[in-house]
């Protein structure tokens, strides 16, 4: 019996102790007509050896590709030490640290994480994780709504340069609560949020303005202007950033004259593998004055009975298991193990390492842009500086180009056509520090071939 240790002798003795004749009798309080489960449609159990082999073959189907897709999930080198330590049973197989004295390892690590993330964002406090970047933004908006609870109605401005899936997620989550999400257009030249579109809301009651950096197109937004606009409106400024980029770009705590109120985003770039989209984690940081509206678990440093430093879950009165219906969020299980990975990753890379990874990614993207600029029938869409992604525009269907690249085992990027039809046939391409100059050359060579192959078919 896989994972069940009972011998028949054990079972005999246990049944005798309980004073029943068989295990079935233990279910005698359940109405008979409910004992109807039927698993006969499921496969028989297999051994680890058999399944490992099957899954090796299964996984191999999707392996061995060069990846130029970004769009919210980024391939970076993860030092071996990170997951070697994360995978240690003591981290991996512990529950939430409810018994603080028996969980000082996890708790201290989370305290260290909170400190690192607050410093990276240049804000005062951080929680211990939310589900992912998109849901963290939804929680940030709900948080802004709670901070602005005196507002008559809740209108939140969302730039169209925000990741389209983030927009879908926040819609699914916050629209249950009578919050209006208003889309802000972007400038078609720069790919940045249009200041003029914002001006339409001057002097109106706005609960919050969401500010992505870099935005979905990889473009660097004018975050100072946006933040200052929000602050003059008394709107909460909510930054949603790539945390790795913050080693290079100005952090949210320094945007505009005052810095933002809340910064959140996807933690995946910091040591978390792509893994088909998850588990990742959402981070959420804010100014000190908002800490009691911060959702999710928070770790605090305290002392033990002898005055020795120790760590506990704190401010639990915000949480569902104490406050129930009045909690700041329903979140319980979070993404602790991924935060463990990020904490180790950030420690290994350090300030300079993180900056170098960001710089290398940026630099390699520039190299790619230079090479692509020489291709016929491919246009680099926006004029603004980018972090490590950019938009390429084609004259033929992106879908076909991607299929052509796939034959060379290259994943060419994310097809923007379905989500931004107004841009025509566009591709979002990402380059990180994992790509060498030869990789880029190979990519551009294949892209040229793909473009001309598709052109021939389409003409």
């Amino acid at each position, binding site marked *: 019996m*896989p*994972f*069940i240790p*009972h011998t028949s002798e054990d079972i005999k003795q246990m049944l005798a102790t309980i004073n029943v004749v068989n*295990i079935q009798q*233990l279910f005698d309080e*359940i109405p008979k007509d409910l*004992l*109807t*489960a039927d698993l006969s449609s*499921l496969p028989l159990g297999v*051994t*680890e050896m058999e399944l490992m082999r099957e899954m090796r073959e299964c996984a*191999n189907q999707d392996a*061995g590709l060069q990846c130029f897709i970004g769009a*919210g*999930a980024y391939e970076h080198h993860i030092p071996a*030490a990170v997951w070697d330590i994360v995978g240690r*049973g003591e981290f991996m197989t512990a*529950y*939430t*640290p409810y*018994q603080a*004295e028996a969980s000082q*390892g*996890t708790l201290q690590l989370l305290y*260290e994480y909170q400190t*690192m993330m607050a410093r990276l964002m240049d804000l005062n*406090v951080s929680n211990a994780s939310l*589900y992912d970047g*998109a849901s963290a933004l939804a929680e940030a908006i709900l948080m802004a709504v709670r901070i602005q609870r005196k507002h008559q109605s809740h209108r939140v401005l969302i730039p169209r340069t925000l990741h389209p*899936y983030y927009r*879908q997620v926040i819609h*699914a*989550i916050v629209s249950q*609560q009578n919050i209006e999400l208003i889309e802000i257009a972007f400038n078609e030249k720069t790919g940045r949020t249009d200041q003029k579109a914002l001006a339409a809301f001057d002097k109106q009651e706005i609960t919050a303005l969401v500010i992505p950096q870099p935005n979905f197109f990889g473009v660097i937004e004018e975050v100072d202007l946006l933040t200052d606009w929000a602050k003059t409106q008394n709107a909460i400024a909510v930054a949603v950033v790539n945390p790795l980029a913050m*080693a290079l770009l100005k952090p949210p705590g320094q945007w505009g004259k005052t810095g933002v109120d809340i910064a959140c985003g996807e933690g995946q770039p910091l040591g978390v593998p792509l893994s*088909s*989209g*998850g*588990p990742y984690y959402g981070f959420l940081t804010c100014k000190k004055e908002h800490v009691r509206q911060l959702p999710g*678990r928070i770790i*605090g440093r305290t*002392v033990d*009975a002898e005055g020795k430093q120790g760590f506990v879950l*704190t401010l639990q009165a915000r*949480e569902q*298991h*104490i406050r*129930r*219906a009045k909690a700041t969020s*329903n*979140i319980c*299980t979070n993404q602790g*193990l991924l935060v463990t990975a990020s904490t180790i990753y950030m420690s290994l890379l*350090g300030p*300079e390492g993180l900056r170098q990874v960001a710089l290398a990614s940026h630099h390699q993207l*520039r190299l790619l842009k230079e090479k692509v600029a020489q291709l016929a029938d491919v246009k680099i869409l926006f004029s603004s*500086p980018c972090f490590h992604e950019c938009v390429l525009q084609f004259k033929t269907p992106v879908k076909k180009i991607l299929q052509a690249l796939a034959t060379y085992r290259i*994943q060419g990027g994310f097809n923007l056509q379905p989500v931004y039809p107004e841009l025509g046939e566009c591709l979002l391409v990402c380059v990180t520090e994992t790509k060498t100059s030869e990789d880029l050359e190979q990519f551009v060579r294949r892209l040229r071939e793909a473009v001309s192959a598709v052109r021939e078919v389409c003409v």
Partner: protein
Amino acid sequence: MTQLIFELSQQHRRAASQIPAANYDCSDIPAEFLRKTLPRLPEVSELDVVRHFTQLSQRNFSIDTHFYPLGSCTMKYNPRGVHRMAMLEGFLQHHPLSLEVHSQGFMACAYELQEMLKAVTGMRAVSLTPMAGAQGEFAGVAMIRAYHRARADHARDEILVPDAAHGTNPASAVQCGFKVREIATGSDGNMDIDALRAAVGPHTAGIMLTNPSTLGVFEQKIREMSKIIHAAGGLLYYDGANLNAILGKVRPGDMGFDVMHINLHKTFATPHGGGGPGGGPVAVGERLVPFLPVPMVQKTADGFRWLTETDCPETIGRLSTFMGNAGIILRAYFYARLLGREGLHRVAEFATLNANYLLAKLTAAGFTPAYVTRRASHEFIITLKNEAKTFHITALDVAKRLLDYGFHAPTMYFPLLIPECLLIEPTETESKQTLDAFADVLIKIMQEAKTNPALLQTAPHTLPVKRLDDVKAARELDLVYIQ
């Protein structure tokens, strides 16, 4: 040894093997957008990092090191092979936005898990995207809301929950815009049916239940309750946190539930990671199928494809950027495959055997079960209210003292309605010998309570820290390290 990583930091120290070495240029980015000073992350060597975090890890209890009978949390063995399979390169380096042709491996696994979950829940369809139980609850309640709206039934603004419910239930209902009404529990641990009858009406959107309940007993009148709710036009939500108790025996769909979540990190043995990640797939009956969150995986003659908003126009939408905690979905699938149809129902059987055995031993030793007349499900509650009075100790003291003996404490003070309670869930993967040792220690601790209560009141004594000051932590907030 308890130094913070920041205290190890030395200016300009670095782990050079990890840092791209070249001199990169970012002159194309105007200075106003650039960070002026480096973020104050720790500056340490690779050895510092390995040593620090390895040492930290050792300051944890975990399944891999300790018995962990944390009620409601199903802390069972997390098979190492499952973890290894999820770390296969083809899974680990797979981008979520890869073309479908480059995603068939992952999608095959996800699809098969959908099918398996349908079979064990007795539901019509499954979406795997919710990232934990609470998000599954949110998705479920959002579907209930969408259902009523689709029928233009706008008056239904109330969700019922038992007073014993887990805090996520009311919190999720509120996050979906509902009011919450609590229903009392009867003295036998079943819900008070009269109170339920009195509560339902045209404002009832639905009820959230778990069965067996958080009290560790099977809600016997579930069919009647389901009739009452359905008759009132409401729907039934099943909180799958306790699915381990009935896996392969009873199907929520057959009990009358319309929607449920499954905690993969409980029933399906994905490791809890010191707080997460988990997985909270939702399963629904006929009526709610159109509203399931996207994406889902569909099987076609040409392979697997994603179902998105375009295919499911009535969906409540997308709950995560991509498709939820994909790696957890893989792990749950592998676990289910290792067990297979002959193994899955044994989970419930042996989880129940273990709970009832431990209950019988403790009862025989003089402990007070919360519900004397009832069978335990996969977990059970003992109340220490008598001991608390007699010896001036608390359930917390007993919990802390257990740590000294190398056992993680059971869940304390939940559900709230049982005073000084411990909710004990041994799970099926623990042996009789471990349960015996645990019972012996609990008995010994009661002996200590009699002869030397201070030993409990000041516990733990053998851990890296003594009892921690929660009050100070909340009053004098110290949430980030200030140098």
